[in-house]
């Protein structure tokens, strides 16, 4: 009993004009009229005309119509066949069908001129949807004219009327009835086809609307979820920044006081005590670096890192980076081969950030290079760079470590990603170094690439422009809120 938002075509009562394709139907009616030489009219239940094809009677009826009384009687007759009851009343009678079986609903409506009409209801699912009117035709047995015509006017010339009425099809009533039954069968088929087409196409539309509504609901939910996730991501970065900051403050004190103890500022210590304190210091430094990395990445993700580019000596940047990792390399017996160009490399960069890029790449290389391995650092002179489409330079750091499988080479630049993320992994670290490298290099308008195969070592190449496009850059966070367009109207 409850209706949907719009009444379905399945619930609605259909009209004849919805069920029939009117142009096609008109063609069918024309074909019948031409074949049988009898006019056909089709009306829907409200008297609306769906087809009206005349033949033969125009001149005769026009002549009768030219007399005022003829006009009045004609109008009445036309009204009777169009709107009168489909029953043997009001001048209509049951048809004369010779010996054939009665035809349900068929009635004959004689015209005052002696011509005749046959009327047949159009039924569909037990409803009357309209009617078919056949005629007028001249009954086969008709001779002369009835009084109802001749009394119309003294001026009416019988000879002339006789001449004109001969153009009207003369046929027995039972023959016309048979043609009409055939027509009704064709109409029935057309209505069935029409119903099928109408219901299937409408239902297809209704089903699509239902589906659309469901998809819209789902899209709405996803979009709400997306907003929530982005907000959570922002909160995560803010949380990391706060926590790192809060961790760093006491840690600096721990390192500072350990340093003072190791220096003997609080009195002499035994060698064993000294070793312990130095271990506290070392581990403290490691922890501090990790916290700094977390702070960096959280700043990047919060979109709070701004790069300032100024003319710099890149050779100096590379050298100072190398010297800061030298102690760690020496500890593992790793050879550092640094190849620098003879001519100076001058370019605009954010010196501190670029130094961090090189340091992170080197620290990464040291970590994954086995004892007594080799690391090669190459800085190229400024030249045209295909990767950038302009002039620039390359810094490459090559290690002789375990290498990186092909399918991992993209992921290693994501923050917190580790190729081996098992709890028993051999190499420590939080998986932030390369993510920071990528952010900073891209902040310069450069690209970072990796060439590697398992067991073959890895070569990281940072390609950087000689002149970044703008003197300053705000590093975009990896997850960016979708821009929402403002209302325009």
């Amino acid at each position, binding site marked *: *009993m*409850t*209706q*949907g938002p719009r009444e*379905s075509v*399945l*619930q609605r009562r259909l009209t004849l004009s919805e069920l029939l394709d009117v142009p096609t139907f008109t063609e069918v009616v024309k074909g019948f009229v031409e074949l049988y030489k009898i006019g056909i009219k089709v009306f829907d239940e409200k008297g609306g005309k769906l087809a009206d094809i005349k033949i033969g009677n125009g001149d005769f009826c026009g002549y009768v119509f030219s007399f005022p009384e003829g006009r009045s009687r004609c109008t009445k007759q036309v009204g009777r066949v169009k709107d009168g009851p489909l029953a043997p009343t009001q001048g209509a009678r049951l048809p004369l069908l010779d010996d054939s079986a009665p035809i349900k609903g068929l009635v004959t409506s004689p015209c005052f001129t002696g011509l005749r009409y046959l009327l047949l209801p159009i039924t*569909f*699912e*037990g409803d009357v949807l309209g009617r078919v009117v056949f005629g007028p035709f001249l009954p086969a047995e008709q001779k002369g004219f009835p009084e109802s015509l001749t009394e119309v006017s003294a001026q009416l010339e019988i000879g002339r009327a006789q001449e004109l009425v001969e153009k009207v099809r003369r046929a027995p009533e039972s023959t016309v009835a048979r043609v009409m039954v055939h027509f009704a069968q064709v109409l029935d088929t057309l209505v*069935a086809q029409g*119903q*099928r087409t109408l*219901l*299937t196409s409408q*239902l*297809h539309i*209704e*089903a*699509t609307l*239902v*589906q659309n509504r*469901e998809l819209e609901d789902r899209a709405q939910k996803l979009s709400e979820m997306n907003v929530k996730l982005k907000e959570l991501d922002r909160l995560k970065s803010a949380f990391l920044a706060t926590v790192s900051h809060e961790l760093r403050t006491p840690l600096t004190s721990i390192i500072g006081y350990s340093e003072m103890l190791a220096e003997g500022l609080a009195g002499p210590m035994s060698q064993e005590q000294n070793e312990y304190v130095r271990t506290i210091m070392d581990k403290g430094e490691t922890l501090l670096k990790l916290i700094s990395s977390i702070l960096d990445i959280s700043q990047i993700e919060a979109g709070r890192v701004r790069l300032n580019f100024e003319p710099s000596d890149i050779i100096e940047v590379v050298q100072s980076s190398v010297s800061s990792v030298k102690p760690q390399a020496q500890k593992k017996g790793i050879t550092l081969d640094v190849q620098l160009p003879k001519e100076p490399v001058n370019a605009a960069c954010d010196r501190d950030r670029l130094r961090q890029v090189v340091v992170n790449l080197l620290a990464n290389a040291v970590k994954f290079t086995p004892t007594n391995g080799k690391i090669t650092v190459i800085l190229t002179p400024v030249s045209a760079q295909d990767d950038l489409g302009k002039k620039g330079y390359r810094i490459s750091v090559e290690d002789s470590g375990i290498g990186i499988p092909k399918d991992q080479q993209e992921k290693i630049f994501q923050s917190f990603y580790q190729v081996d993320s098992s709890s028993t992994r051999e190499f420590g670290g939080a998986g932030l170094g390369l993510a920071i490298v990528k952010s900073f290099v891209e902040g310069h308008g450069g690209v970072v690439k990796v060439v590697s195969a398992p067991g073959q070592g890895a070569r990281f190449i940072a390609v950087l422009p000689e002149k970044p496009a703008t003197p300053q850059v705000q590093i975009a966070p990896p997850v960016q809120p979708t821009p929402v367009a403002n209302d325009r109207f």
Partner: protein
Amino acid sequence: MQLNHAQRELTVKIVYYGPGLSGKTTNLQMIHQRTLADVRGRMLTVETHDDRTLFFDLLPVFFNTQSGFKVKVKLFTVPGQVIHNATRRVVLQGADAVAFIADSRRAAGQDNNSYWKNLLENMRENGLDPAQVPVVIQFNKRDLPDTKTDAELEESRQKGKEPVVGAVAIRGEGVLETLYEVLKAAYRAIDGRVHLAKNIGLTEKEFLTQVFSLMDTKGTALEAEFPAKPAGGGQAP
């Protein structure tokens, strides 16, 4: 249900629901074959090339009551395939009662259950209260191997309030019996809301008699109540 006092017309909508290939269309075809030609319309079927119902089937049955009301009973089937859920929902709109056609084979149990849940969900989505729309369950394909036993059918009957009818629709067994149960349930549900007996003078007995006296009940459980008449010469189109 649509009750039009001005046109003195009552339209009752029955929906045959159930998993794909459970025999919904076969039920309608059998009803069509056993109904006198002048009280039913053409059966409309839209099939895909593999003989499966794409949209729905529609079989209208109509009669005039003694009090001069015109009653149209429209029997619909829904497409059984999973992907046509939106069509199922549209066809289910405004249903007065549902015949749930289940496959009796044990292997079909899970399918039956998921379509049962789908029916309840689509009713709610359409704003129909499952507690207000009566459902009759037909266990079809009783002739196939691996079907549930009569005892198991009895068990299903005890599980809920829905009437349960066993059937072999392809042989016409249980088809009119299911229709009888679903029409009776529909009448009672509508009567409970608009008081058909009081308002339009249509009693349950007349409603059922008008429909089944126009059907060939030979060999069915309804034969005693509605003596068989010669079939309406209805060849399925």
